[in-house]
C-alpha cells in the first residue's frame, strides 16, 4: 500500500477516478445504449476476473463458467419478480445466488477436479449445457423457469427507496438508470479487482499457482491440491453467481438464450486473449471483447455503405467474422495474450506434455 502514496501514483489514481466518473456521461452523449454497453463491459470484467481465479490462477480449464452466471441470474429472477410473486431485496438475494452458484461449483468440481485439463474442459462444458437445457425445459410439468420465454419484470436493484431504474436527480445532476447501474458496477468491479490482487499475492494464491505450474511438486510440498482446486472452483462460481444476479436486475429479463456455450467461450477468450493470470490483461481482454462486437455492430453497416454504396454482406455475420478473425490473429501474433504478466512473456518456447 505504501507505494500508492508517492505523488506519481496518487496522480494516476486521481486521473483514473476522474475518467471513471466522467465515462457514463461521455458515453451518454452517444445515447443510453452506449452506457449500457459500458455497463456490460464492466460486468464482463467482473466475470472474467472470476474465471481468472479458476483458469488463470489455478490453471483449471472451465468451459462451463456461464452456468454459474445463469444460476445467479435465475436465483435473482425467481426471488424478485412476479413469476412466483416473491420480491426479496437485492442485498438478500445476491449472497443467496452466490451461495447457490458456489454449491453448484462444489457439486460439479468434487467428482471431476481430478480429471486432466482437457477432460475437465469438456466436463464443465457439458455441465454448462445441462444447466441451460434445464432452464429451457423446466416450465413443465411445474413451471419453474418459464422455459424459453424466460422471466420478465424482474425487480431492479433498490436500496431502501432508491431505485436503480428510471431517472433521478442527485445534487442537481440527472442520472439515468444505466448510469446509476454504472456506478454500482464500477464499485463491484473495483472490489473484485482488489480481491483478485490480494488473492494473487497470498498463501492461497501462491498455492493455486503452484498447482497450475506442477501439481506433483505442489503435493510434495504439502498442498492439498484437491481442496484448493475445489476452493478456486467454488470462488469462481460465487463470482459468477453475483454477476448473474446483477445482470438479472439490470436487464429486468432473463432467458436461457443469454447463457449459451458461446458466452462461456467468450469469457474464457477474454481471460486468455488479455493475458491469463495477469489482472490488467484480463481487464483489457474483457473490455476489448465486449466493446469490439458492439463497435462492429454500429460500424460495419455504415462502413459498407460508405465504401460500396450498398450492403454487400449481412452486417451481423461480418461482425462475428471480424470477431473470430481477431481472436485468431491475436493468438497468432501475441500467443501469451495482449498484455501478459512480465514473467509469462518469457514463457514461450516451452511446451507442456501434449500427446504423450
Amino acid at each position, binding site marked *: 500500500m505504501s507505494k500508492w502514496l508517492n505523488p506519481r501514483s496518487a496522480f494516476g489514481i486521481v486521473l483514473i477516478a476522474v475518467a471513471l466518473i466522467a465515462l457514463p456521461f461521455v458515453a451518454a452523449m452517444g445515447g443510453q445504449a452506449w452506457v449500457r454497453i459500458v455497463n456490460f463491459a464492466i460486468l464482463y470484467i467482473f466475470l472474467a476476473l472470476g474465471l481468472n481465479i479458476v483458469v488463470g490462477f489455478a490453471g483449471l480449464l472451465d468451459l462451463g463458467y456461464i452456468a454459474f452466471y445463469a444460476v445467479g441470474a435465475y436465483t435473482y429472477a425467481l426471488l424478485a419478480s412476479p413469476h412466483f410473486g416473491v420480491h426479496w431485496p437485492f442485498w438478500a438475494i445476491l449472497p443467496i445466488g452466490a451461495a447457490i452458484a458456489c454449491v453448484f461449483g462444489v457439486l460439479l468440481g468434487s467428482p471431476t477436479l481430478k480429471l486432466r485439463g482437457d477432460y475437465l474442459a469438456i466436463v464443465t462444458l457439458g455441465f454448462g449445457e445441462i444447466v441451460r437445457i434445464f432452464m429451457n425445459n423446466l416450465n413443465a410439468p411445474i413451471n419453474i423457469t418459464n422455459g424459453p420465454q424466460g422471466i420478465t419484470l424482474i425487480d431492479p436493484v433498490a436500496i431502501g427507496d432508491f431505485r436503480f431504474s428510471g431517472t433521478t436527480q442527485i445534487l442537481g445532476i440527472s442520472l439515468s438508470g444505466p448510469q446509476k447501474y454504472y456506478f454500482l458496477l464500477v464499485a463491484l468491479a473495483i472490489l473484485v479487482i482488489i480481491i483478485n490482487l490480494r488473492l494473487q499475492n497470498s498463501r492461497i494464491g*501462491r*498455492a493455486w499457482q*503452484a498447482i497450475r505450474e*506442477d501439481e*506433483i511438486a505442489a503435493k510434495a510440498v504439502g*498442498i*492439498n491440491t484437491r481442496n484448493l482446486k475445489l476452493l478456486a472452483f467454488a470462488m469462481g462460481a460465487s463470482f459468477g453467481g453475483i454477476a448473474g444476479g446483477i445482470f438479472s436486475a439490470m436487464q429486468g429479463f432473463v432467458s436461457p438464450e443469454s447463457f449459451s456455450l458461446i458466452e462461456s467461450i467468450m469469457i474464457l477468450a477474454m481471460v486468455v486473449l488479455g493475458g491469463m493470470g495477469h489482472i490488467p490483461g484480463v481487464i483489457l481482454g474483457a473490455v476489448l471483447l465486449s466493446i469490439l462486437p458492439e463497435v462492429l455492430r454500429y460500424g460495419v453497416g455504415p462502413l459498407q455503405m460508405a465504401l460500396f454504396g450498398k450492403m454487400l454482406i449481412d452486417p451481423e455475420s461480418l461482425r462475428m467474422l471480424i470477431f473470430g478473425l481477431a481472436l485468431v490473429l491475436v493468438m497468432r501474433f501475441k500467443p501469451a495474450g495482449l498484455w501478459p504478466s512480465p514473467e509469462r512473456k518469457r514463457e514461450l518456447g*516451452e511446451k507442456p506434455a501434449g500427446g504423450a
Partner: protein
Amino acid sequence: MAEVLLEARSVAKHFGGVKALRDVSLSIRRGEIYGLIGPNGAGKTTFFNCMTGLYIPDGGGFDFDGAPLKADAPHQAAERGIARTFQNIRLFANMTALENVMVGRHVRTGAGVLGAMLQTAGTRAEEAAIRQRAEDLLHYVRIEDRADDLAKNLSYGDQRRLEIARALATEPKLLCLDEPAAGMNATETEELRDLIDGIRRDGTTILLIEHDVKLVMGLCDRVAVLDYGALVIEDVPAVVQKDQRVIEAYLGA
C-alpha cells in the same frame, strides 16, 4: 525420542509383472545422512515415491516419527515432516525463486481466503514471516541474489539449490534428495556436499539417493544398496564398499 525416524516394513511395489520393490525393509535414524544407492532401475525412486505418497505400495508400509504414514496422500507426508526433491527437478517454473520457497511454507502456515481478502493483521504478519523465512532460506542455499528471477531462468545448479530451499521451507524432519548431484560438475558437487552436510548439522535427517558413489560414501553415515528391487545390504560405507554383492551389482556380474 526414539532413535529411529523412519522405518520401512517389507515395502513391495509392482508395475504389471515387474517387481519394482521386493519387501524392502530399512530404517533411518535421527540425525544421520542415509544413502540409498543401486544401479539404474534398482527401485530407488520407486521407494521414494512410495514413501512420499505418490505411489501406493502393494505391500508393507512406513512408520515415521512414531506413527504409520498414510499411503496415497502426498500432501500429508509433507505435513508429517517429509520433504523431497525430484530427480528431474520440478520447480514452479513461472514463479520467482522467492515465490517457490514461499509456497514451501504453505504447510506450516494457515492464512485462508478471507484473511487474504480482508488483509487482516494476522494475515499480514504471517505473510511477512513467510517472506522473511523464504529470504533466509534462499540465503542459506546461497542463491539470495536470484530471489526475483523466475525459477526456470536459474542455472541448473541453482535450480537444484532452490528445490532444496523449497523443501526445507516445509520444516522437514526428513529431507529426501533424489539424485541431487546428477548433471553437476566437480565443483558444484563439492558445494552441494557442503550444503547437505550443513543441513544435517542444523538438525535435519537426510535420505540421499545418489548415483555418485563417491559422494555417497564420503557423506553418508549409513548406506543401503538396492538391486532388482531388493535390499542387498544396509551398513556403514566402509562395510558396504567391500561387500562382494554390491561390487557385483555395480559391475553387472
